[in-house]
């Protein structure tokens, strides 16, 4: 089956589009997660393909639908955390014995196609619609919501998976070489790590508003605290360690003003959701969580790296799109679950939203107050990437679980979970979803 990448027409990139035409008519119901691992151990069932099958089957079971009722699959074919299969390294024979391969030998190991999934899930006998929403789950769920709303699929699985191999993040390939192509060199020659751009924006933010790095400590503590209550997360499963403010302040720099804990941990993990129409969702096992809107931020910087002015203008514009399409305002948000990988841009997202009345420059002071799950102002109850490892989807799972009332130890108690927003990744360039416990 040929799988296209979602066309631009499926997104909502502009202001002035009015309420989303499918507002409240699409629902998320089932959730499936694989276990996490720091890196692939070489066992086929733990490959990125193997864990994806596990997540998909768990989502189907969780929703309480028969596999033959599923007619759609939306996913991201890119699975790298920054780790690449070494050139010339043979494919393990076990993979070929356990799974039905595609023409691409790295499919299921270092990438993932819809064909690979369908080859290895023979129970999905009625999938007629497949589409790619590249980048992260934030994109894929927007594509799935629009596809279900448009009637392209009625019962649709949404999948995002990540692989991670041995070796340090981004240390191989061209970065280990003696020469690079001219276009890449305009940025890469100066040797900046991935967090550098966000660190720059954070530095400018601190200068402009009179803040400092250590004011992020409560946010980091809160994120890890919430993440340790997320049984699907990496830190809860493998290293149940809290980060204290002292740990945070003492951590080594990566690109000052970003330190070790201002970065997330690459892991292997897969998550799947089951999306369907609001009508169909009523018969399923879990309570439906309704989609009120999805929105796209496709702003780009004028030059090498976004300025603070560009970031703030774009997050404010994104918020207007989010609210307009959902027919809500900031005061309607029960909590927020905006992306945090890197945590130093989380404040841009929530200031743009005007969450709890925040204006630009306010968030770091806000972090010094009660931002926990039992208070009136929950910040990132999922724990995000900092609390659970790099997946870019904890915040979506958490929104669904919170509104279904099954977030367990993370369940917010200081507010009634009615409407939430999640999305990312970047302040310039991301996809956002508004979730609701009711269709209107």
């Amino acid at each position, binding site marked *: 089956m040929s799988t296209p990448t979602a066309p631009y027409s499926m997104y909502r990139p502009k202001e002035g589009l009015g309420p989303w035409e499918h507002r409240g008519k699409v629902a998320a119901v089932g959730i499936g997660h694989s276990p996490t691992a720091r890196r692939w151990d070489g066992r086929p069932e733990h490959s990125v393909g193997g864990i994806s099958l596990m997540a998909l089957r768990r989502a189907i079971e969780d929703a309480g639908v028969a596999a033959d009722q599923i007619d759609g699959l939306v996913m991201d074919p890119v699975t790298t955390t920054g780790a690449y299969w070494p050139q010339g390294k043979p494919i393990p024979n076990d993979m070929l014995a356990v799974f039905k391969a595609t023409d691409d030998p790295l499919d299921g190991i270092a990438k993932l196609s819809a064909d690979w999934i369908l080859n290895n899930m023979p129970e999905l006998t009625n999938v007629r619609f497949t589409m790619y929403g590249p980048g992260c789950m934030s994109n894929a769920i927007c594509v799935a919501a629009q596809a279900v709303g448009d009637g392209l699929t009625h019962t649709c699985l949404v999948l995002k998976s990540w692989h991670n191999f041995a070796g340090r*993040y*981004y*240390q191989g390939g061209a*970065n*280990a*070489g*003696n*020469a*690079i*192509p*001219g*276009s890449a*060199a*305009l*940025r*890469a*020659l*100066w*040797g*900046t*790590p*991935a967090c*550098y751009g966000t*660190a*720059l924006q954070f*530095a*400018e933010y601190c*200068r402009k508003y009179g803040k400092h790095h250590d004011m992020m400590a409560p946010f980091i503590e809160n994120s890890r605290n919430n993440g340790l209550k997320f049984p699907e997360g990496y830190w809860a499963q493998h290293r149940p360690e809290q980060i204290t403010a002292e740990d945070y302040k003492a951590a*080594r*720099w*990566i*690109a*000052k*003003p*970003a330190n070790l804990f201002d970065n997330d941990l690459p892991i292997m993990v897969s998550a799947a959701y089951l999306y369907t129409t609001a009508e169909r969702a009523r018969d399923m096992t879990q309570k439906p969580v309704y989609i009120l809107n999805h929105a796209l931020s496709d702003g780009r910087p*004028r*030059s*090498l*790296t976004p*300025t603070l002015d560009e970031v703030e203008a774009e997050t404010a514009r994104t918020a207007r799109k989010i609210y307009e399409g959902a027919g809500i305002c900031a005061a309607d948000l029960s909590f927020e679950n905006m992306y945090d990988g890197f945590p130093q841009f989380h404040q841009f997202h929530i200031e743009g939203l005007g969450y709890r009345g925040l204006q630009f420059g306010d968030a770091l002071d806000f972090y010094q107050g009660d931002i926990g799950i039992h208070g009136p102002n929950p910040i990132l109850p999922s724990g995000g990437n900092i609390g659970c490892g790099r997946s870019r989807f904890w915040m979506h799972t958490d929104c669904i679980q919170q509104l279904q009332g099954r977030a367990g130890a993370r369940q917010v108690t200081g507010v009634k979970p009615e409407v939430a927003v999640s999305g990312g990744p970047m302040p310039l360039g991301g996809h956002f979803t508004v979730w609701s416990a009711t269709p209107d």
Partner: protein
Amino acid sequence: MAKQGVVPDDLTRPFWEAANDERLVIQNCAVCNRLQHPPARRCHQCGSNAHLEWKQMCGRATVYNYGVVHDCPIRLLQEDQPFNVAVVMLEEDPGIQMYSHLPGTPVDAVPVGARVEVIFEATANGQKVPEWRVVHSAGSNR
């Protein structure tokens, strides 16, 4: 600092050839009279590729922002850690940024707002690259 060598590609060749002549050129759309960097196949404003040209810059700029890299992914630069990576804004158009290691400026002592001037450094394969050197510290009245 020993930067990786550069292999010019079609899009950026004029930039790198000018650098070897110790000239700084930036892509410009002649119709929009708008600079853009990094260069692109089309003008980001009008969308046309018909009027793109390379325009020589005066070589003066201002330090806009900086970070200090302690954990660099580029093997050749790792022995020089930690080091500054500043963003400078060109005098002709402050919307146009370039990166710099700011040779001669101590680590984490980057004067944001200071004036800088372009210099040219040879990379590992001899290709020259624009770099920047502080000429006045921030707050100076000179």
